[in-house]
């Protein structure tokens, strides 16, 4: 790989960095500082026939790579997660190798991350820890309310960065909160580290051993280079490790944390978690809310203590009951029942389909496409194994990444025998489906029970 030879390390850093390029080997991208200019127009290269097929091809390749990563096995996933994000707020974060600077990029990405995290993990909780000047500080406590975290991220005082970070202090602080988390939820730490050094009061390996013992998974995103202790931390706790090479790669690494991870423990018993399903009340006169102490018109009433709260999901401030709504629980279902990956249709078989099943976009006809182009591109058709409907690349991505339904499978009469169809069928029908008084459907749970 060209990147190996070209990677140079600043002489001052040489003794600190453990030079290991294994994470780079399969990647074409360079570090941000290695790029001479941003010449995005060079990416668009016409081939000898003057067409842009090569560009289209590479874009499709990119999409395909993303598709290959998808894991559609119905495995057990930790849906209820508890995640602490440790943010390095040391002077190293002021470096400008990631634009506009490591720190401001991190805060921008974290805002998007938090919104997306709660979108996909609606009954999970996040906490934020910052570390600077040899100390660690909790920016927010574990909570399931995204606005609270985003507000904290916007506070000026948290955005100052100086001094050295302390990895051990930050990990210990996160650990002290995570060990009180009930066992049915996952315990995770995500460390975002810009510094190559850490100032610790004790032996960091003791802390790592304690994390392993407490079943806490620590993943690390390093912004500068691979640091041995960070890598050791992630491998010991079965987390992931990545070095951000440029802005886009940083974002990818960060967002990889969002899908719930597969649970590898073999304990078969599931836990039952007590949750409240508050109803919304509309009031004619304003009353005080329990969460902010403000006068508001309407809110959600905690079914256990009758306190009024502004928003769900949250924990009741009075009695600490977890308050959710049935659609929120339903939001997590697509993790349990993912859509099976589509298979690529070759040019040879492409003649039978003329347009995408779901968006009606016409496909390139194999008869009108030259052999040269056919050799370098794929047919742009992706087929669902179950319904045998064909989709375009855009719809394939949309269906798997956003929609989580196969329109083809849904728009056919459903055969009983296919276990996979059970996902779209009665098997997955959860108890949260509101009871429908209808002679034909007979309530949502009938199929499961009968």
């Amino acid at each position, binding site marked *: 790989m060209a990147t190996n030879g070209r990677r140079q390390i600043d002489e001052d850093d040489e003794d600190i960095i453990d030079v290991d390029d294994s994470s780079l080997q399969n990647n074409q991208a360079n570090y941000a500082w290695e790029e001479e200019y941003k010449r995005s127009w060079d990416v668009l290269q016409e081939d000898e026939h003057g067409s842009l097929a090569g560009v289209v091809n590479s874009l499709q390749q990119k999409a395909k790579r993303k598709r290959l990563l998808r894991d559609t096995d119905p495995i057990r996933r930790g*849906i209820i997660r508890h995640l602490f994000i440790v943010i390095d707020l040391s002077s190293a974060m002021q470096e400008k190798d990631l634009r506009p600077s490591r720190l401001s990029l991190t805060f921008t990405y974290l805002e998007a991350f938090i919104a997306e995290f709660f979108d996909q993990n609606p009954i999970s909780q996040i906490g934020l820890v910052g570390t600077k000047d040899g100390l660690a500080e909790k920016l927010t406590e574990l909570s399931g309310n995204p606005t609270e975290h985003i507000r904290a991220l916007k506070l000026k005082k948290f955005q100052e960065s100086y001094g050295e970070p302390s990895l051990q202090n930050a990990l210990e602080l996160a650990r002290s909160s995570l060990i009180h988390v009930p066992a049915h939820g996952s315990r995770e730490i995500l460390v975002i580290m810009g510094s190559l050094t850490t100032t610790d009061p004790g032996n960091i390996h003791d802390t790592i051993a304690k994390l392993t013992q407490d079943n806490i998974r620590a993943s690390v995103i390093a912004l500068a280079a691979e640091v041995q202790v960070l890598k050791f931390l992630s491998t010991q706790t079965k987390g992931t490790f990545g070095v951000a090479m440029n802005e886009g790669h940083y974002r990818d690494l960060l967002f990889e944390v969002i899908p719930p991870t597969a649970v590898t423990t073999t304990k078969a018993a599931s836990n039952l978690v007590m949750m409240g*399903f508050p109803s919304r009340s509309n009031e004619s006169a304003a009353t005080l809310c329990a969460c902010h102490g403000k006068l508001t018109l309407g809110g959600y009433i905690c079914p256990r203590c009758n306190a009024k709260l502004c928003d769900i999901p949250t924990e009741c401030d009075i009695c600490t009951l977890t308050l959710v709504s049935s659609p929120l629980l339903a939001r997590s279902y697509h993790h349990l029942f993912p859509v099976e990956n589509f298979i690529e249709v070759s040019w040879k078989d492409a003649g039978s389909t003329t347009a995408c099943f779901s968006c009606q976009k016409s496909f390139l006809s194999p008869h009108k496409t030259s052999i040269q182009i056919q050799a370098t591109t794929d047919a742009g058709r992706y087929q669902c194994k179950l319904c045998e409907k064909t989709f375009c690349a855009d719809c394939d991505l949309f269906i798997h990444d956003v929609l989580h339904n196969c*329109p083809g499978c849904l728009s056919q009469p459903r055969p*009983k025998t296919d276990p996979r169809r059970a996902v779209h069928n009665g098997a997955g029908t959860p108890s*949260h489906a*509101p009871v*429908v008084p209808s002679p034909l459907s007979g309530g*949502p749970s009938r199929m499961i029970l009968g």
Partner: protein
Amino acid sequence: MKDSSANDSNLLVIVIDTNPFEWEHASSPLRLNDALQHILAFMNAHLAGRHDNKLAVIASHVGVSSFLYPKLNEVDQPGSKQQTRKNANVYQNFQVVNDAVLTGIAKLLQDPRPTLEEKDLGSSKIAASLSLGLCYINQALKSDGMGHIKPRILVLTVSPDSSSDYIPIMNCIFSAQKANIPIDVCKIWGEDAVFLQQAAHITEGIYIRLDDPHGLLQILMFSFLPDVFSRNYLCLPGQDQVDFRAACFCHKKIVDIGYVCSVCLSTSIATSSKTWRQGHCSESKLIKTQHSNTNGNMN
């Protein structure tokens, strides 16, 4: 998504429930043919509203869901030749849409019934239609690029909720919510459609259950025609109460405080319920896999 402005064109995706079991039922207050006259007038009104307003029509039939307009392969030539010059008194664009919808529905109704299972009877494929509509909108937004298309979905339904559609409909709702696509629902008659009520609530669309189905056109024109931008300035019908509480898995009772399984997220009224403890995740092979965490491959 950018704020809507008065100069945006509107993409309206209409999902028509063509379930013949409901429309041709002896007690139905309105025939499909009559209702279609209302709906076609509404579609034409939408197209007439702006020169660049766009329309897609999807039929949600029993056991199948398909596009009526634009039809497969005809995207590039909307006014294909055989359909032109039928009626000199009708604006060309209206003619094309009307013909496509009417012939499409006629074809659906004539088609030999696919072999249906009992549970398919009486429920139409709303989830499939919504999925198709969302894919279509996704593609339209992608090819637009400028962000000037404001999509919305209107579901015209007569069928009762189909409980097996719960997860797919929820998935559609969340993707629509993410993309800021309002789902409007018009229940022409019958009981409230609970899933679609939630859809309208979560995506900030409008839900209306008609008192008098013969007034369909009026409701369509006054409540569903205004685009996303105009809605800011109008006082449109809202929903007073949407029930978001969960139902207990075993007793089918609505619960306030329940116990949720940390693996499959099903809810029960009490931990002591033995049948639930043993049975809640084991009925389906798939969920069993979730629990025992054995081999993940189903086939």
